[in-house]
């Protein structure tokens, strides 16, 4: 009987079985950011512990960093305090910090892959739920809490229960104007926001195989929104050529040896899965969330569903969503007026995302009532986009071109919604209050759809705007 990638990686990283029945799992790559780490370092100090493998942890600043200035000290003293804490912690414990304006800084899940830190067959952990992103390279990558950040720092290990594996197969092909974001929103809509609890999602099928590495990252990124703590794609030639030449990837003959090992870690053809789910790319349209969790999504040409469309235990949340969003069942989502457009985040802040959005942005001007932001996912993404002139296209269309960070994905920096503003957003969460205003409303969609909404001033179908 063959094995899945998850099983192989798990076995290779098992230090021992713990009396509790959990596995003591070695963590190959640990990523740290400023929000969920200060308490972990403090616990190390209190308990007199050191960092066991400091060379296997890398740190960046992304969540609280302002995107309109890099001027220190930051205007927000709390943000400045958090910056000082991570600088001090990394210096004291010997951890490499990718500081702002170093040329490396970016959202933790953008920079891991782009620096070649994330590699197939690795275990990756970070105090951030979207660590699932790194699974796009064939890594077993998952989010952890702050006490577990302390565990990884002190022991390079976690006590973990091995998840089951559900193979999520998307066959066929995607229509024009339909992107990786629509694929994952569709999967979550169909499997539910808690459908993946206890599972790792292995994404497979023609649509996934055809995707670029960055598109696969978008899909894996939102695994957690479907309840799955991790999601991955088996490494293939695309993965290997993506990694070739990246700063932290192996070089020369070591790279060829690495490819052989990486290939051996992919799921075997006769691997057994705990569950399977099948979709067809042709069924997927440009998808928009209308509610307060990422499962409350519809194709842009559909109407807000009635309560009866939901299983009984989801109706209450649907009712809450109608109230919060100010929408009625049966109302089309197309035509909903927006106030803010946000392109960025670890879901959709990479170069290919900006390119797709720019294709739309060059076709018009942002409506005067809309505030539109483009926030590249990393300094490297920003450099590449600027080299292609994308920033000029966005600016000419009336978008603000910002500096890299999480920005309005969770609004811990000054980029926030106000009151009940509606935001067309390429990020990953439409929870109540997520974008910084307790009453703010978020509509998740692809970057191209966000650009289209910015230009129309309302939710539109990007297929009607894109040239055929």
């Amino acid at each position: 009987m063959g094995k899945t990638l998850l099983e192989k990686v798990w076995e290779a990283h098992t230090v021992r079985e713990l009396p509790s029945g959990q596995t003591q799992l070695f963590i190959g790559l640990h990523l740290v950011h400023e929000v969920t780490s200060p308490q972990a370092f403090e616990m190390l100090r209190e308990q007199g512990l050191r960092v066991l493998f400091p060379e296997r942890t890398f740190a960046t600043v992304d969540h609280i960093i302002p995107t309109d200035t890099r001027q220190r000290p930051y205007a927000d003293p709390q943000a400045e305090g958090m910056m000082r804490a991570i600088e001090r912690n990394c210096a004291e414990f010997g951890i490499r910090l990718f500081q702002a304006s170093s040329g490396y800084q970016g959202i933790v899940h953008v920079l891991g892959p782009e620096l070649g830190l994330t590699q197939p067959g690795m275990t990756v952990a970070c105090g951030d739920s979207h660590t699932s992103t790194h699974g796009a390279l064939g890594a077993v990558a998952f989010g952890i809490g702050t006490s577990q950040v302390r565990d990884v720092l002190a022991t390079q290990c976690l006590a973990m229960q091995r998840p089951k594996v559900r193979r999520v197969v998307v066959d066929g092909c995607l229509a024009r104007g339909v992107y990786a974001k629509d694929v994952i929103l569709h999967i979550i809509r169909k499997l539910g926001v808690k459908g993946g609890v206890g599972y790792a999602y292995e994404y497979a099928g023609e649509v996934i195989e055809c995707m670029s590495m960055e598109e696969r990252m978008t899909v894996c990124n939102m695994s957690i929104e479907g309840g799955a703590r991790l999601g991955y794609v088996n490494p293939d030639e695309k993965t290997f050529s993506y990694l070739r030449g990246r700063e932290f990837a192996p070089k020369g003959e070591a790279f060829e040896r690495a490819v052989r090992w990486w290939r051996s870690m992919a799921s075997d053809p006769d691997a057994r899965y705990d569950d399977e789910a099948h979709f067809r790319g042709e069924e997927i349209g440009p998808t928009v969330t209308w509610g307060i969790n990422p499962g409350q999504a519809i194709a842009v040409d559909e109407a807000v569903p009635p309560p009866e469309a939901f299983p009984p235990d989801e109706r209450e949340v649907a009712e809450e969503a109608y109230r919060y969003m100010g929408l009625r069942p049966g109302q089309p989502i197309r035509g909903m007026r927006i106030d803010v457009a946000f392109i960025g985040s670890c879901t959709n802040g990479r170069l290919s995302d900006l390119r797709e959005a720019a294709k739309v942005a060059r076709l018009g001007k942002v409506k005067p009532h809309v505030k539109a932001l483009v926030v590249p996912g990393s300094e490297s993404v920003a450099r590449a986009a600027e080299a292609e002139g994308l920033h000029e296209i966005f600016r000419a269309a009336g978008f603000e071109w910002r500096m890299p960070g999480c920005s309005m994905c969770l609004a811990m920096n000054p980029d926030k919604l106000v009151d009940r503003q509606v935001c067309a957003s390429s990020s990953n969460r439409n929870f109540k209050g997520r974008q910084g205003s307790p009453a703010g409303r978020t509509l998740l969609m692809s970057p191209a759809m966000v650009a289209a909404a910015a230009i129309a001033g309302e939710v539109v179908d990007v297929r009607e705007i894109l040239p055929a």
Partner: protein
Amino acid sequence: MAELIRIEKIVGRPVPLRGNDIDTDRIIPARFMKVVTFDGLGQYLFYDERFDGSGKPKGHVLDDPRFAAKGPRVAVVNKNFGCGSSREHAPQALLRWGIRALVGESFADIFFGNCMALGMPCVCASEADIAWLQQAIEEDPQQDCVVDLRSMRVEYRGRIIPVTMPEGFRRQLLEGTWDATRILLQAEDAIRQTAARLPYVRGFGAEVDS
């Protein structure tokens, strides 16, 4: 290092937190996470559900005088509690508000693990039992709720409700081994051996293929 603390039984006044898919952004909004310690997070628990824009209470259950008790508390929740962001600030805020155990229909994975790391058990009961519990508590919140991890039973107003929790986690709480750092570090030699076996830790040197 900290001493072993065994968690066998939690006795405390219950508080019902109704709703499915309550995400950690709601439990503790991100703007309260710009702190370098968890102290004081309790006051921001469910902040935007409890207070309006000007800080006036909106009549949330946490501010209902009937539920204002001192001492340890037990939260009774519904499905997929704690979904979304991995922020440990959420269980920390619950803990610092006074919650010592959660009884619910189901919990999100990361949230469950974060609670375990704090020695705060999350146990599951059936939908019908949770419905009864929440109603019974709302009718009469002035009695203690008992969460017994030895017998895996929750008791309220004389009624006994069977609850579940994965056996490994239960044992960690009962044995006092839920604070993982010390357990993990016991195997330092094995950790180094595992690392030395991994081809990428060895930089994919020539011996990898042999």
